[in-house]
């Protein structure tokens, strides 16, 4: 989608339209605000966490047009016209957990779980693109997310459990669930 050119002097806000978890939002934001702050403070979805604000920890990872991105290293205005999925968008509206959330619970993947939004969103993309990853592939793909509590084994097991859950839920259903339910 092409965007028109815009200019916003210091202090002036810009209107943007963004779809977050399938809900359309029209926001007026100061261009310097990070997308993470916009999602957390302006939209009120605090499930996306900030661990470093310089792109290393991965806690802020969200899906922007389906691709995992650091919400701390994007401006809110970058989301203009985009479709965003955050941790809050994974479960069904009735509260049923997404198979990856369920798998991570079963595997007891997390402790403080501050890192979990980033791992979950990275895993959604990983299993969509590679539904049957090897342990090495899982470790490599998740190496952009830091966890200080677990030593990672339980998280890798969580992804492996998710492969099983997604595999069984995909049987007899459309490809939608096989992609983690996130377009």
């Amino acid at each position, binding site marked *: 989608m092409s965007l028109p050119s815009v200019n916003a002097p210091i202090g002036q806000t810009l209107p943007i339209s963004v779809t977050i978890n399938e809900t359309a939002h029209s926001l007026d934001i100061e261009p310097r605000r990070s997308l993470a702050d916009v999602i957390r403070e302006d939209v009120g979805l605090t499930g996306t966490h900030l*661990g470093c604000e310089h792109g290393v920890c991965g806690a802020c990872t969200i899906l922007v047009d389906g691709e995992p991105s650091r919400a701390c290293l994007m401006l809110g205005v970058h989301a203009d016209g985009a479709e965003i999925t955050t941790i809050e968008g994974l479960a069904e509206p009735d509260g049923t957990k997404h198979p990856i959330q369920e798998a991570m*619970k079963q595997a007891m993947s997390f402790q403080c*779980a*501050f890192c979990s939004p980033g791992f979950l969103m990275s895993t959604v993309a990983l299993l969509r693109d590679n539904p049957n990853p090897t342990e090495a592939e899982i470790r490599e793909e998740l190496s952009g997310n830091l966890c200080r509590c*677990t*030593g990672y084994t339980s998280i890798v097991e969580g992804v492996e459990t998710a492969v099983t859950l997604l595999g069984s839920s995909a049987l007899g259903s459309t490809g939608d669930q096989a992609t983690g339910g996130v377009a």
Partner: protein
Amino acid sequence: MTDTKDTQTSGLGFMGQRVQRVEDDRLLVGKGEFVADVLPEGVLHAAFLRSPFPHATINSINVTAAARLPGVHKVFTGAELNAITNPFLPMFMADGVYTPLYKCMSDEKVRHVGDLVALVVAESRYVAEDALELIEIDYTELTPVGTIDQALEPNREQLWEKADGNVLGNLSDSFGPVDQVFSRADHVITRTFECPRQTNQPMETRGTVVKVDKATGHLEIHNTSQAPHALKWALAAMLTDEGGIKNFGKFVRNADRRQAFTAAAKDFLSKNKESLKAQDNAGQVSQLKKDKSLLKHQGKMAMGLLASTDYPTVKAGDIGGAFGSKGPITREDVAVAAAAKKLGKSVQWIEDRVENLMDGGQAREEQFTISMAVDSDGTLRGMKVDFVLDQGAYPGFPISSLIIPLLWKLYMPGPYNIEAFELNGQIVATNKGRVVPYRGPWANETWLRERMLDVVARELNITPADLRAKNVMREGSMPDAFITGPTIDETMSVAKTFDRALEMIDFDQLEEDKAAAEAKGHRLGLGIASYHEAAPGPPNFFSSAQPGSDMLLSEDGRAEIQADGRIVMYTSQSPHGQSHETTYKQVAADEFGVPLEDVEIVWGDTDRTQFSFLGTGGSRGGPLGAGVMRMTARELRRQVTDVAADMLEAASSDIEIIDGNIHVAGVPAKGITYADVAAKVATDKRTTSGPVFTEQMQYDGVGNGGWSVATHVAWVDIDLETGLVEIPRYLVVEDCGPIINPGVVDGQIRGGVAQGVGAVFYERHHYDEQANLLSTTYMDYLVPTAMEIPHIDIEHMETLTDGENDARGTGEGGMIGAPAALTNAVSDALGVEVYEQYLPPYRILELAGVIDR
């Protein structure tokens, strides 16, 4: 043995099961409430101006331009906040140690990069940071103290004017006939070791949100605190702004307050008679010799606490890890609370990662010289250790780094039979960030001892395994107490884990693997380390280090059954990843004989839970925290059973409770529920809401138990061309008694080992010689990823003892054993001794002789 196990898994038997975490139902769907998520309507945001210099005096500060910036509500200079707050006082004192007093801000002198100079409160954090750039400060730089060696120089610029140079404390103690043992042993082997600075680095930084009630001025503080009650009291004391006499007058005139105080004091004195008698005042005397102002401040704060009828409420919600770093009460906590109180407006401060690296908690920069007295046959006879601990600029509060050498004093000889031990050393101040407890704060005693055992073994031409096997304390011949004082139960023997670990190592295979590695230009090595850990130790553990300290350490808990039958358990713990909600439900549900979801666990809110000085820390959550849950639940079940027996017209001893059905044994069809019993009592008491059963208890653990023991074995594979290290296998054999939830225990162990892997191969908090911080971002302080941490095998032993709730802590051990096992493995692989803990690839190749230093 089996009997004991049965009493520990009553009811539905959740104990010991891998019960999935109830926490995950909110945390994994983005519904946790972490401190940064607390954004009350109209909240203002705070940012600190921090010193760019390690050591400087402040000549002037000009905040005019910053204060004028649109969106800024107030710029507080250090002096302004200091004027309305009281200083941090030493709580923990020891003979020979001086602890400097300090205020929440630095108004005359800065002592480390990141020291607090001014505070901006603005409509957003963005604007607050804009304002920081407009504050003008004139500094005069002073000579910095960047290293331990510099701190020991006699004429170096001093951080604290009342200290002796930059030495804050001298400690020494000895046990057994040291001189005799050292003069008679066949060999005395001496080496020097050093460990560089590390930092805890939880993924969530610190934060505090101070809500101010417009009508009453009451403060409700949401904070990442491991110890919310300690924070509440500290803030109540430090925000006291009226004089002592005035407050004393207020107190005297308030009869209710006076009566309540007298009752509480009497209760405290009678409960702690022994501990109070045991206390010695040598620490207080040492402190007063250096700084008499302690008494004046203590007096003022004590009077403030007496007079005040409105203490802050502290709430700790979901916390994103801490590893010790969120236990201490920090200057930011006080400054932000004082600012919010002064403005009468709610204020949020969330530490950013750069701030966290500067002063969110640092650890383990320690040097040691160790001598071991040993006979030619490998019999260990004695040990002497000299240490220097670099505590950074400001002492931790309420527990300073002094705790570390006091714990070394108890632990250092480890699980080996020796006749004599001596520890001498110094705590020094440098221009660096604060030292805090970091997962097994004393862990370097294990690293030092276990590394040294390998050195000694090679000197004597014995294998490291044989040397340990010869000297490790074994069941059957174990003393009742360590040479350093604490008692030990012989069922908690390290030897068992050590023997099992040896069984699990295939030494023939190891030789083959070593040869295969060598053939491709690699080196393979194996390292072993054993330790015991007071988790939390027997009740006499801490008082062996600091007489009388045990009175602050019991664990309180409360159980209630509400009029509608709901079971609510109140813990004084403040969990931050350890899954307390799940494990406490398991324990309580078993006692009550109900499903997990029938139990609610309340934590973290000082208005609802009982006082606890430590909160979550010191490996107490499993043994003491769960212990007091079990005790109170059991007592309430007894009371409920009595009422139910009346209702069912049976004897109490015939009542059984299964899955919430309270019935006469064998007649489940005619059962009643907790709700029925509660309703009956409520009717009798003529109430309709609130608790109808309440039981509050204290628990200190029992007997000589409380020891967790473990042996770690690490295999490392080193590429001599790159210095990169892989860990093909890592094994932990551990015994923490009966396991409440193996999923939780495994996670704690693996997480601890991962931090140990980090400490050895990736993590070093770098300051240069001028005390400038070099690792200021996550590009420089390297927390390992899933690619660096290996799979970790765990073998559980689960030895049961006779005690009630004999679960022992397991949160710290991983980090205690790993650095020792890993450095021993590197040493074995390279065939050289390793005397430092941090081994990045370049250092590996230097040690291997591949490149020049």
